[in-house]
Every structure is written in structure tokens, then in C-alpha cells.
């Protein structure tokens, strides 16, 4: 895996994890 590959993977995973965590946090916070 190249350096650019790592960058793309970390970026892709990072965007999705942040988005999923943010939206689920909002949903579950409201639920409580």
C-alpha cells in the first residue's frame, strides 16, 4: 500500500466515522 493509499484510506474512514458518530450522538442524545 502506498503513502497516498494510506492517506486516502484514513481520510475516507475518518470522514465516515466522524459523520456516523456525530449523527448517532445527536439521535441518541435526543432519545435520552
Amino acid at each position, binding site marked *: *500500500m*502506498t503513502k*497516498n*493509499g*494510506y492517506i*486516502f*484510506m484514513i481520510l*475516507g*474512514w475518518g*470522514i*465516515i*466515522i466522524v*459523520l*456516523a458518530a*456525530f*449523527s*448517532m450522538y*445527536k*439521535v*441518541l442524545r*435526543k*432519545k435520552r
Partner: protein
Amino acid sequence: MVNHIRDHWATKIGLILALAGNAIGLGNFLRFPVQAAQNGGGAFMIPYFLALVLLGLPLMWVDLAVGRMGGVHGHGTTPGMMELLWKNRVSKYLGVLGIFIPLSIFMYYCYIESWTLAYSFFSLTGKYFGNTSQEAMRQFLHGYQGLESNSFFSGIGYAYLFFLITFAINTYVIAKGVSAGIEKLAKVAMPLLFIFAIILVVRVFMVGTPDPAYPDRSVWTGLGFIWNPDFSRLKDAKVWLAAAGQIFFTLSCGWGIIQTYASYIKRDEDIALSGLATVSTNEFAEVICGGTIAIPIACAFFGLVATQAIAAGGAFNLGFQAMPLIFQQMPAGQIFGAIWFLLLFIAGITSSVALMQPAVAFLKDEFGLSQKKTVLICMVFLFIGCQPVIFLLGRGFLDEMDFWSGTVALPLFALIESILFAWIFGMKKGWNELTHAAEIRIPIIFKFIIKYVTPIYLLILFVAWIWQHAPRVIWMDGIEYETKCCMWGARALLIFIFVLFAILVKIAWARKKRVPA
């Protein structure tokens, strides 16, 4: 006409899990890694994320807004919803596509879904173990499908049995209704799906380099195959089309399903946050889980060149022929094989129940039929519709249905809906509908995106797909006579389904005129 009280989602998390369950299907774990690998690896992710923002997310919000508005007016399906968007006698017939598409897709999706359940059973019992070549696994699959009689299977019996089991499970869930059936299934199935996916992701990373004699054959080479960017591919229009197509399929937007699910949301409940949560949950399953399981492990066991050939062979090649070979070489492979195919089955069933729901909702809402009667009618109709798909599989029946409902009708309906919403209903009213009771602030730029960018994206997709497939599928170039007859049979079935529902819409609207609500 019997007036019935419409069901509602019991909890917000239940709604999101059901919407995510609809979106997360076989494509997340099989289609996405193949598409990414075939279209420039990491560079594919640029048009992919762009399409997510410009096409997927806006369409998800439009579907949810249209659906919630329809539900408030007592319509659980798109004929009634399209009429709310456009007060014209034609609009309700355009909305028939939103019942036709999921119903016709169910007729073949349910059968494919049953293969995953069967393979989970075969993995656990070790039925395909001992066949260590791809050719042997191809024979195993073809024998199972009844395409050939061989040493593995002498007929279609096993395939039919697993189809019956799958169909029965779908019927049971649908018969229970929205909150007690679909929502309960999603609450159990979705956490299970993520547990299975994470177990497999961890197992893939533990594989590392299975054979030290071949240091190139490693999980990292596989991840590199998916993520190493080949920027030269960005000049290729096909890569952009493939990325937009993947987003369109993975989120199941513009099919008529999300609108039906959203019709069970109360007027003062949020849809903006629900849409974002659904999209991000789907992407987690697709990019993080789907992108880390099949291709990287195939690279670790077969090497890069062989994996490229497998990926070129398509998603089923990867899922049903290559993966079983890997499980045979893995310690506790029977268990991991069962988990992999059960993961696919869970992904499939949460999508297939969603495919059924629009037809059920239509008969209940527009004809006031009871749940029991509606489910019975739909099941008999679908059961009959599934038979030619099963018995004429080798004659292109499934592919023909997939082309007309998946490649032609889908983008066409999404395009119609986005134009009606943004241009005829009007973006001002549409925006108010979308942001009503919203728990997050949708950036104002999406007003522009929904009005201009999303319809253009869909128009390009629609025209390009027709252009790509026209010579082979529409004109049936180079296809033998018997297969042509079966393909015409599939077309006749699809026309019948569309006309039948168009007539039902006409009857339902005529009844409403006679008996005002």
C-alpha cells in the same frame, strides 16, 4: 371503504435502523469493493464522495420529505405522493413506478438472498469443502442454481427449499406490520450485522501475510488495491458514472421504498437528522466494513493478479466462488464462512422486506384492506412472480428484469421525483417541508444542489446507462432465439405489473371520488 389507523415507527432509532437496513444490502459487501477496485482504487473515492454529497444525501432528504408529507395525507406510496407534488391527472400514474420498481426487484432479489442463506448452511456443514479450485466452485454454484446437473447437485431442490424458507421469513416479518415487524427485525438484525462485519474485519487484519513464501500476498496489498489512488482514471467518464451509480444503488434512494418508510413518520418528527444518520450508517457498512473484507482477504490468499481477475468477473464471482475457496484455507473456516454468508443474508433480508412494503402499504392505504388480506394478496402475487426467475435463471430472465427495473426505471423515477419536488412543487415549499422539525441545520447550499445538481446528475446517469446497455439488451444483439423468448417473457411480466398497478390506481382514485374521506 374501511378507514384504518396508519402504523408509525415506535422509536427514532428503530426508524434509522430500518432505513439503514433497507440501504445496506448485498451491494455494500460485494458490489462496492469490486467497483472501487475496478475504477481507480483511492481515486474512485473522489467521485464517490462527491456523488454522496451531490446525489445521495439530497435524494435521501427529498425521499424522506415526500414520504412524510404523503403519510400526513394518508398516502403511504408514491402515486398519492406524486399527486401532492403535482396536481395533475398524470402524476399519480408516474408514481406507480414507486410500487413497480421495488415489487419487480423483490422477485429476483429474494431468490439471490436465499443463496446466501443456503451458502451459510453449506459453510457450516462443510458441503463445499474439499473443492479447492475456482472451476469447482463455479460448478457447485451452477449445480445449486439448477443450471447444470453435476456431482454436487442433481436438481434445483436445495435452491427451491432455501427460497421457500427465505420467502416465508419475509412474509412473517411483513405480516407483523411496520413497528412490530420491520422495526423489530431492524433492531435485532442491524446490530447483529455490524457485530458479524466487525468480527470479519478483525479476522481479515489477523490474516496478514498467510504464506511467508509470497510476501506480496497480504491484506495490505488488498487494501492498497482498493485505496491506492490512480489519478489517471479520473479522466475516464466511466469512473464517474460507476461512482454515481454505486451511490445511487447503495442508498436505495428514489426507489419508492424510503418514501413508504417515511410515510410512517409523524408530521412533527425530524427527517433531516434521520437522513444523515441513515446515510452515514450505510457508508460505515460499505466503505469501512465492505471495503475491508472481501478484496483484501482475496489478495492475501490469491495474490493481486488473481484478485484483479476475480474482481473483473463481478460481485457474485467474488462472493460465491472466491470467498468459499478462502474459507477452506482458513482455520475455523466453516464458522467464518457461515458468518460471512449470514452477514449477507441479514443485509439482504432487511432490504427485501423493504422492497415488499410499498405494495402492502398501497393496498392498505388506498383500498382500506386489512393487514391479513393485503399480505396474503401480495405474497401470492410475488410468489408467482418469483417462479420464472428461479426456473429461467439460465435464460436471462433475472438479468432482463434487473435491466428494466434496476437500470432504466430506477434513475428515471428518481429523476421524475427530483424534478417534481424541486421545480413543480417548488423549492421554497420543498425546503420548508424538508427542514420542518429538523434537529440539524441543513446548509442552505443544498437548496441549490437539490434544484440543479441532483436532477442533472440523475439525467446524465439515466442517459449514459441506456447508451451503454442499449445494443446488448434493448436490441438483443447476439442472443439466441430461446433466450430471446424468455427475455420477452420478462418484459411481458414487467409490463403486466406496471399496467396492473396503474389500473389499481385508477380504481382507487375513482372510489375516493365516490366516497369522500
